């Protein structure tokens, strides 16, 4: 099968390309770039990008797909459908399924379910420790052989430095990045929002910024000592961003990601006790949000990841302190990044594409992805930077609707998505 994506503006930061260029795709791979003045090859399918941006398929380093075990919240198929509608061609599910993805059988199962769905690529993240209990190492190497790309105990972060050190030593042997959801639970336990003025005002128990920062600093010290690659999940505090900035300057192998909600909303959003503003790490105060945005501007932050965390409406229809943490995010991330980062001049389009494709591919070592250079997988995200649209969560492809962004208006959206050269999403006129 041959496909030509033409009349688009190609942005491929990994290949240092930012120009009008047609992309020729054969058998699931990019075979060549063609000048737009060149005649179209014969017997070929044409996709007219109509002047829109043509970018390497976006890669989300942090999602929760809930399968196996909690299919009432999301399945791999519905999660993948939401992903491609949001412009993500590859997604990396965290291991906190039921059972936990701490062995090769589950890893393989997740990949097979994704293949059945035939939408986005799914690259599972394996657990660091068995059952994410923080006690015994999980079979990382076996999971890697089965297709896992990194390890993490995510929401149940490895509590002791001793265990984390051993995990890093072992993961390094197998070239697996170690991802940490930095939260010292002895400081945050029982907390349901950011600790600060607003939590005092609302009478809700706070999770101090310190809980994230202490773990981030611990991990950085361990990475420096072990030589492992530590990837800090969803940085949300000024101290964590600064710790990463300094560690990078010292040459520590550290990378980090940010979620759209941590660069768009502050803890003020919690004031109405809407459980769709409850997530971990929590929405922080304005000073932290500004520090996060500065980290995006100066390149300290490497990637945008959604932390897409579906929960059923019944589970969120609870008291604020009893409701589960997390919001969905796959469909709103690009819109939020355009509104808050591009429109406001924090970063340009090329950097946005880098944060969503080239960098995540590099962080998890995804060969032939994050670029559209000839030979690469033909995962493509087509973006209309001027499209104005309103998010109506009732139309979501996710099984869950837990979002604080219902009714928000955006400028900029993914309008078509290709995975392995096959179109898996086209935005209808809305």
């Amino acid at each position, binding site marked *: 099968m041959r496909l030509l994506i033409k009349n688009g503006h190609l942005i491929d930061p990994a290949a240092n390309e930012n120009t009008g260029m047609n992309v020729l795709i054969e058998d699931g791979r990019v075979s060549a770039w063609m000048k737009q003045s060149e005649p179209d090859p014969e017997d070929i399918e044409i996709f007219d990008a109509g002047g829109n941006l043509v970018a390497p398929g976006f890669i989300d380093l942090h999602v929760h797909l809930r399968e196996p075990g909690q299919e009432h919240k999301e399945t791999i198929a519905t999660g993948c459908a939401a992903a491609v509608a949001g412009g993500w061609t590859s997604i990396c599910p965290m291991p906190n399924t039921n059972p936990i993805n701490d062995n090769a059988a589950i890893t393989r199962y997740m990949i097979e379910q994704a293949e059945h769905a035939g939408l986005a690529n799914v690259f599972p993240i394996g657990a660091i420790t068995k059952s994410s209990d923080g006690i015994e190492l999980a079979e990382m190497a076996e999971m890697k052989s089965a297709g896992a790309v990194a390890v993490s105990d995510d929401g149940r972060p490895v509590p002791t430095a001793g265990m984390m050190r051993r995990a890093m030593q072992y993961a390094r042997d197998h070239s697996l990045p170690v991802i940490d959801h930095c939260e010292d639970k002895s400081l945050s336990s029982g907390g349901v929002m950011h600790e600060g003025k607003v939590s*005092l005002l609302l*009478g809700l128990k706070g999770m101090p910024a310190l809980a994230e920062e202490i773990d981030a600093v611990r991990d950085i010290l361990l990475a420096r000592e072990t030589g492992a690659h530590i990837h800090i999940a969803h940085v949300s505090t000024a101290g964590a961003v600064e710790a990463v900035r300094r560690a990078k300057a010292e040459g520590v192998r550290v990378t980090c990601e940010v979620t759209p909600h941590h660069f768009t909303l502050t803890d003020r959003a919690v004031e109405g006790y809407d459980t769709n503003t409850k997530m971990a790490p929590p929405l922080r105060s304005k000073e932290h949000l500004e520090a996060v945005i500065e980290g995006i501007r100066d390149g300290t932050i490497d990637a945008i990841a959604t932390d897409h965390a579906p929960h059923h409406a019944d589970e969120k229809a609870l008291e604020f302190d009893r409701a589960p943490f997390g919001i969905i995010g796959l469909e709103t991330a690009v819109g939020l990044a355009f509104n808050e980062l591009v429109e406001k001049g924090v970063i340009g389009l090329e950097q946005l594409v880098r944060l969503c494709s080239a960098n995540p591919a590099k962080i998890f070592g995804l060969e032939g992805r994050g670029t559209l250079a000839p030979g690469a997988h033909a995962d493509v995200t087509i973006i209309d930077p001027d499209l104005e649209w309103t998010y109506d969560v009732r139309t979501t492809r996710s099984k869950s609707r837990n979002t604080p962004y219902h009714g928000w208006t955006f400028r900029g959206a993914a309008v078509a998505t290709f995975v392995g050269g096959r179109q898996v999403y086209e935005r209808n006129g809305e």
Partner: protein
Amino acid sequence: MEKPFHRRDLLGIKDLSAEEVLGILDTAESFREISSREIKKVPALRGKTIINLFFEASTRTRTSFELAAKRLSADAVNISVSTSSVAKGETLIDTALTLDAMQPDCIVVRHSSAGVPHQLARISKAAIVNAGDGTNEHPTQALLDAMTIREHKQRIAGLKVAILGDILHSRVARSNIHLLTKLGATVRVAGPRTLVPEDFESLVEEGLAVAQSVEEAIEGTDVVMILRIQKERQDSAFFPTLSEYAVHYGLTSERLALAKEDAIVLHPGPMNRGIEIASEVADSARSQILDQVKYGVTVRMAVLYLATGGRPVRDEE
């Protein structure tokens, strides 16, 4: 009588203006004598239905709301829902929608989670009155405290008030701080630093100070308000022992002597005698704890009356 309170719900003191607070207190003044009549009942809320929905055990607040409703001739129903029955499967929202479908005029709600009244107010047709939500607010407690203070001091503005104890976890403290500072009093809070964080001062724009010691907080005050120490919270050990607390932070006669000579002592109850308050203080003439209970009914009559949009009370009734 012009309606001074233009809201449907009473969710907290935080969002009220000083005028609204005074409006509620003045309405309460007009209800004051009903409770001392031989026949303690007026038809102001005849035909209105009030549900007291208590997710958290409470005797005095629930009884107080129930009496308030009955003295105004409303039909009051008490529902106690242990949070465990919510765990059986019904969500908070379902419980509220079910009750709301029975078309009450007002739902009085107490819950151990902050924000529940706000969540209910978004989906309910009935007016929601907050009878205490987690560590957030307890607005009618602050109103009855204010009524007690006005009774004894004839004003709120310009007074110095000390609030002592577990400020961090106290909805009573939060509502009182909002109310007293809105009406022009200055408030000093004190207790162990683990329960009185220094950044608590940021709670309100002005009028609140975190004192460095209980003595500093009490010095020269008109009102000393003691909070209940929740023994059950001692699992998480915010201070070493109750006996150490009593010695270093409790309100003793010696400490109370630092306040103004005519200072009054308030406690929202139930008291832990010998811990946060010495018995001789609790039983002294300074203590206005029973007045608080008395005005609790009066203030709740005013709140229910305003929330359900009842008719003005006429004397001949």
